[in-house]
């Protein structure tokens, strides 16, 4: 496997959806190509850092305010009938 082929398969590899044959070829490539190993490892870390970051969590007070606003609007919509949105 060449470096460019590794890059094509990287997303499927990280998502765990590569077929066994390609996976073996890719892991063989990673065992000797340090650059691709680093790209693979740091891309995986990028995904994990974002996934675990709790970026843009909804604070509890805002959350209940929004929910109550949503339900009030929904009830108004129900009273007025379907053409109001």
């Amino acid at each position, binding site marked *: 496997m060449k470096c460019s082929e590794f890059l094509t398969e990287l*997303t*499927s590899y990280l998502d765990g959806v590569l077929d066994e044959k390609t996976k073996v070829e890719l892991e063989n490539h*990673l065992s000797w190509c340090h650059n691709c190993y*680093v790209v693979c490892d*740091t891309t995986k*870390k990028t995904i994990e850092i974002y996934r675990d970051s709790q970026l843009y969590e909804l604070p509890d007070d805002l959350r209940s305010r929004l929910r109550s606003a*949503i339900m009030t609007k929904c009830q108004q919509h129900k009273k007025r009938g379907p053409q109001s949105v």
Partner: protein
Amino acid sequence: MEAIQNKVVGPVSEELTLVQAAKRGDDSAFEELVRRYDRNVFRIAQHITQNREDAEDVVQEAFLKAYSNLAQFQEQSKFYTWLVRIAVNEALMKLRRRKPERTVSLDEDIQTEDDSLPREIADWSPNPEQQYTQSELREILSKTIQGLPPGFRTVFVLRDVEGLSTEETAAALELSVPAVKSRLLRARLQLRERLGRYFQRRENGNGKSGDKSSDVNTGDVKTGDAPSGDGN
């Protein structure tokens, strides 16, 4: 190296029971759907709009739209995927209103493949996120993802932050599966490249870049000028 594990959002059968009850006019069932997905919709909206007030509006508008169009919802797909599609459209409309001079769509700023090829190959410090405080890290992550075109960051957020499958992401964004895969790869690689500026292993051993605080505070996440490395 193990594959990334996705977050799982609530059981599908329970979701369907709630949707059917809400369709029959049970508002408490709809409120339960709001409780179940409001945090996800808020996160997605803020990632796309990059603006807290807009994200709050999107949450309200998306749920109201879902409520008022519930009768049209076909139960072959997941309610959550349908809701995400509504929320993404509302969020993109907000972006368009804020940037009327530019056409904002999921196809905007799609660059050539070469732009996503790795140039910076230096390894990162072990546990790079621990070099920063929580608020510093949030600022770095927020500034970094803001630098991606909306079409890339939306795919990344749905797939990698919210844990939707490739097929669900394609359905929610009305894109083909190959288009989702291609954008996801490029989004991941571009984010990796940009985060490398903060997380690279440094010669002085502690991993912290001397000028990182000024970088974070000025919001100047530089892009596209990384030292060249040989990715081929």
